[in-house]
């Protein structure tokens, strides 16, 4: 108890919690560009800079494409570097996301999840980060402000580990978490400082006595495929590193993290798999349904890349039916998280039936009512052993569609 006595319990928004983590990490370079609903993070950081509370060079770029480009330059130079974004911003930097990961640069970036246009909408869904699935970034998801704070701090250790050297994206739900005020516990500054340590860059540009070349052309006569395999292997190695970082983090925070959180899953027969804030609502409904005697549970995924397929299959294999909630569309097929979960389960001898619900696009509410509907459908599937419809929507309004 003694070593966790100096925690600060505060009321904070998700953005405030992330900004606090960034302040405590005190990166060498912070690249800032505004976009709703992320803006408050870089605003807070500007105040830290103005107050002299951080050592960071604060670079205010003219677009997100440039923000990721500047992060790449700064990280290759040898600095610890962070930025934050959302939605269109993440989409605009898409090209650079691949280059950051392919150049093996441990950049840390909170992404406040928001829908992508069109139509333009500033509210939460996961189409931004899901669109970045194959960019080579490690992706962590956060149910609430506390987890966003905790993930941001752990991200530094994961990204910069010599076995990994990959950028990490920390996702939190736009407005619902970024702007909602809730309770969170902040760790003492000095403990965060010693947890993240100093970056020891590998072959940095600023070691001018040992000139290195970043970003060469690696064509047919080269080793492009081997370099990509090397990058994929680093992502594999990140699995252990994520768990090690979580273990060490528990020592300074008292909070335990893994690839996912299981909520009343052991003895459940049906369960929901989801990401981020919808887990909170789902837990509430699980408590109600459990009180009615129904065997329901939840798996809340924290680590989406690398995808913990083996562990997830192990955790879900005893179930009769699973509903995967996707806060993103992949027009023409099922939701992206559903695809991954179903793939993870496919080679099991006996496996649960899996259905998919699209929910919450553009910030559409996911209420107790929607969670209940998902469980009701699951109960039918579990009882009949038959899937009527693989893909359904939660919370759609009645409309008339012309074309």
């Amino acid at each position: 108890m003694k070593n966790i006595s100096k925690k600060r319990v505060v009321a904070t928004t998700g953005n405030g919690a992330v900004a606090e983590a960034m302040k405590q990490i005190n990166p060498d370079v912070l690249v800032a560009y505004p976009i709703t609903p992320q803006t408050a993070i870089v605003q807070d950081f500007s105040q830290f800079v103005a107050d002299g509370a951080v050592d960071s060079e604060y670079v205010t770029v003219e677009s997100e494409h440039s923000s990721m480009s500047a992060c790449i330059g700064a990280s290759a130079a040898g600095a610890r570097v962070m930025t934050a974004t959302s939605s269109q911003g993440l989409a605009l930097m898409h090209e650079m996301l691949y280059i950051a990961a392919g150049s093996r640069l441990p950049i840390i970036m909170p992404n406040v999840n928001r829908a992508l246009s069109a139509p333009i909408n500033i509210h939460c869904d996961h189409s931004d980060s899901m669109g970045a699935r194959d960019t080579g970034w490690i992706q962590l998801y956060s149910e609430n402000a506390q987890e966003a704070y905790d993930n941001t701090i752990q991200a530094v250790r994961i990204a910069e580990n010599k076995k990994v050297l990959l950028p990490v994206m920390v996702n939190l739900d736009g407005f619902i978490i970024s702007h909602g005020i809730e309770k969170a516990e902040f760790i003492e500054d000095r403990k965060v400082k010693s947890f993240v340590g100093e970056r020891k860059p590998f072959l940095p540009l600023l070691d001018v006595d040992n000139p290195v070349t970043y970003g060469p052309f690696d064509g047919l006569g080269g080793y492009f495929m081997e370099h990509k395999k090397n990058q994929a292997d680093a992502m594999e190695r990140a699995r252990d590193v994520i768990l090690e970082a979580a273990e060490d983090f528990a020592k300074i925070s008292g909070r335990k993290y893994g690839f996912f959180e299981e909520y009343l899953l052991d003895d459940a027969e049906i369960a929901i798999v989801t990401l981020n804030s919808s887990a909170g609502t789902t837990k509430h409904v699980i408590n109600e349904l459990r009180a009615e005697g129904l065997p329901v549970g939840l798996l809340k995924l924290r680590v989406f890349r690398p995808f913990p397929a083996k562990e997830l299959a192990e955790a879900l294999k005893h179930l009769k039916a699973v509903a995967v909630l996707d806060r993103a569309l992949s027009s023409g097929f099922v939701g992206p998280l559903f695809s991954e979960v179903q793939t993870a389960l496919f080679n099991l001898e006996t496996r649960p039936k899996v259905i998919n619900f699209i929910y919450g696009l553009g910030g559409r509410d996911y209420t107790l009512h929607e969670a209940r509907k998902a469980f009701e459908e699951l109960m039918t599937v579990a009882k009949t052993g038959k899937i009527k419809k693989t893909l359904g929507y939660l919370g759609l309004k009645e409309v008339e569609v012309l074309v």
Partner: protein
Amino acid sequence: MKDWRANKLMPGAIIPKGGTAREYKTGGWRSATPKWDEEKCKQCLICWISCPEGAVLVKDGKVRGIDMDYCKGCGICVAECPFEVIEMVGG
């Protein structure tokens, strides 16, 4: 990184040392060869500063010849020499 080779992969395809291109000899590209005449040369060094390849060999501030390992035979040194010291010969 002295013993570094192409198939010793660095993260991010980083080339861990400078100037490895020197191992690639561009002299084979030549279809004509500049011939420099030491006798006639006034040592103005214009050919040296004009060569796209850095192939004009200079030591102690004096032109000593042309590095045929790298000279691509473009002829710029011939065109730029104010004293018609260099001429292009076939092959």
